[in-house]
């Protein structure tokens, strides 16, 4: 059948199972949008800034496990995607971004709204395409989804010139393509043997779980292995939720703002089994003092990560779920029960003695108390998304995540303005779950225009703004390391977030006292509306404990 490029695009997206898409139309993508006008199977969410489209697609992907899709026009529409796409790249999130481009005959002529997106997207995507012939489009879309989701996931960008959208070709959808990369998923048997030989000799093993565990759906295997060998589990920021954090073997997050018990256990362990993590500097602190007594086994699907930061005793390339399953099978006959009993006692003692305090009654509110009560309202099914900065680290440190894909934060890039649009994407993917954005006032204002999107499209995200009128994390560094010189981190007494919410037609409320948190959060959730809760917190509160940048995990500021 002969189809136009626009028809091919939507047919191909439907063949990939795409149900929701975030975007903004414009001149260079107008043919594609014209075709979308008569599409009933795809829900298009008209956002208010293209950056939000990319973050929404990212949030959608992280909670659902299905690729998130965004679409924009050329030039500024496409360049506005950049931060969101890089954010998805740093955190291995499968996002497919499509943007219009000027007609092929105008490429390189500085045409209106032309940007060299092939060059701009090249270093921040797993792969990117420009469509030069309409007949290639089915193959490119198929490849984009395949590349985005295979192996270590990541974003893929398709640049789609205007004339290609209206050109016609005889094509087959879905196209048949082959990808020769990212296909090695199973570990080599001798690698499993070597790993088991190391594990059975250890007395103080620990498992460090990263985002890869969640991406591969390996949570059950992670818990099974931890229980089998009595190994406590520490997670990275992106690994939060890979093990239920109320599990006796869960020590919570490690690293710069990790739990003290997690950081100390890593410093004491004799074997560290790292799964699906890239040893970010935020997780390791000074690498020379990271897990100094441990032999390290590093499991990752991306060979680039193996040996990049730490020098492991053994590396295993493979999918986390398959590697963990192979380890469990091999260990079940060889593991001596009781071997880690002493270690288990030590771990429980550390957990007891170093448990973080959350039961403050102060006014202005302590963020720890707010996080605790949000957790009590959300239970195990609520999804928490965070902005970036102190709000994020309070959530990461104190919030107890019980299921994978129920905690979403911007890790590698640390993108302020990520949380709100990402939670919008999360809510679109999981409409039956309560979605709360734990935000700072600084971050929230970077994409607060999306309140309009949420109101118009009835996306009931609840924004809990931890309002201290500061760019709090920078202020914290200034307080701790720059002689309390708060250079340009005070934001002033504006805006009134309740009125801001009301101006958009959203639910707005203010919380100032400990007793009000649960009640007002429940009201906001029950309103069924997008909501903004302006929570006035102590402006002098720091995120503690903390390992200063480049410091040692066992030397935390408290």
């Amino acid at each position, binding site marked *: 059948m002969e189809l136009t490029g626009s028809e091919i695009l939507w047919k191909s997206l439907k063949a990939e199972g795409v149900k929701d898409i975030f975007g903004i139309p414009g001149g260079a993508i107008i043919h594609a949008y014209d075709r979308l006008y008569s599409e009933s199977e795809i829900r298009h969410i008209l956002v208010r800034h293209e950056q939000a489209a990319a973050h929404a697609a990212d949030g959608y992907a992280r909670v659902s496990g299905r690729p998130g899709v965004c679409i924009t026009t050329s030039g500024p529409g496409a360049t506005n995607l950049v931060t969101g796409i890089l954010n998805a790249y740093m955190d291995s999130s499968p996002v497919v971004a499509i943007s219009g481009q000027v007609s092929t005959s105008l490429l390189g002529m500085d045409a209106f709204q032309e940007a060299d997106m*092939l*060059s701009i997207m*090249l*270093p921040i995507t*797993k*792969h990117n395409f420009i469509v030069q012939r309409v007949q290639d489009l089915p193959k490119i879309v198929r490849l984009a989804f395949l*590349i985005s989701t295979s192996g270590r996931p990541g974003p893929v960008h398709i640049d789609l010139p205007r004339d290609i959208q209206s050109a016609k070709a005889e094509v087959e959808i879905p196209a048949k393509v082959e990808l020769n*990369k990212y296909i090695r998923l199973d570990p080599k048997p001798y690698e499993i043997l070597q790993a088991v030989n190391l594990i059975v000799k250890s007395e103080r093993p620990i498992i460090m779980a990263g985002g890869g565990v969640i991406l591969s759906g390996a949570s059950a295997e992670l818990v099974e292995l931890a229980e089998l060998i009595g190994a406590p589990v520490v997670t990275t920021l992106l690994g939060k939720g890979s093990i239920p954090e109320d599990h006796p073997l869960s020590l919570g997050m490690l690293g710069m703002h990790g739990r003290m018990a997690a950081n100390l256990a890593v410093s004491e362990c004799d074997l560290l089994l790292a799964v699906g993590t890239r040893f970010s500097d935020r997780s390791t602190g000074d690498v020379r003092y990271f897990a100094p007594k441990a032999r390290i086994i590093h499991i990752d699907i*991306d*060979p*680039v990560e193996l*040996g*990049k930061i730490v020098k492991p005793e053994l590396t295993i390339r493979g999918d986390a779920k398959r590697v963990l399953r192979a380890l469990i099978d091999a260990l079940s006959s060889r593991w001596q029960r009781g071997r880690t009993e002493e270690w288990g006692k030590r771990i429980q003692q550390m957990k007891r003695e170093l448990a973080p305090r959350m039961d403050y009654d102060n006014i202005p509110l302590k963020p720890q108390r707010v996080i605790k009560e949000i957790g009590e309202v959300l239970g195990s099914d609520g999804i928490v998304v965070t902005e970036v900065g102190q709000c994020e680290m309070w959530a990461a440190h104190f919030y107890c995540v019980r299921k994978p894909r129920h905690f979403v934060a911007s890790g590698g890039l640390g993108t302020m303005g990520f949380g709100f649009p990402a939670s919008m994407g999360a809510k679109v993917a999981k409409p039956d779950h309560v979605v709360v954005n734990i935000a700072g006032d600084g971050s929230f204002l970077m994409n607060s225009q999306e309140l309009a999107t949420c109101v118009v499209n009835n996306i009931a995200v609840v924004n809990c703004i931890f309002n201290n009128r500061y760019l709090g994390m920078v202020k914290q560094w200034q307080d701790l390391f720059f002689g309390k010189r708060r250079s340009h981190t005070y934001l002033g007494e504006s805006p009134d977030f309740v009125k801001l919410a009301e101006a958009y037609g959203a639910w707005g409320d203010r919380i100032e006292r400990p007793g009000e948190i649960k009640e007002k959060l429940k009201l906001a959730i029950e309103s069924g509306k997008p909501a903004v809760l302006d929570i006035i917190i102590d402006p002098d509160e720091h995120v503690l404990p903390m390992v200063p940048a480049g410091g040692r995990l066992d030397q935390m500021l408290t």
Partner: protein
Amino acid sequence: MKTRIFSILCENVPGVMMRVSRCFTRRQINLDSVTVGIEPSGLARIILSFQADDHTTEHLRKVLERLIPIVNVEIIDPEKAAVREIALLKSRRLDDREVMEFVQKVEEKGGRILEVRDGIVIAELSGEHSKVEEAVKELSPYLKEVARSGQVYLSKE
């Protein structure tokens, strides 16, 4: 730090050079030499030389192999490879005596004369980098312009 050579087999598509070169740029590594040729299969072979330590070299190999258009990356040991570099030479306008001298010198160095017209000589030299380097230096009083290839390596193993 020592000289490293990558022989990269990749799809012959626009942008592939940029995908490869930015991996080096990002790490502030200068490419000493770049050559590209098309294989009989239609794939392109890019040969790069650069300075780096063992850890960075291995990391870069893996980073490059992750790229979609790249088929594989071979690390070539310069000790176990055939190495050649080509220089094309154009003389300034020479008088008859100088033409005789220049032709003689080029041929002594194993070069070939491609053309002589109106006192301007075009010649070709090839060999190992140091040999070409030395010859070009010695012939420089006669020269107006030199075009040199990067180094081409072929593993003997």
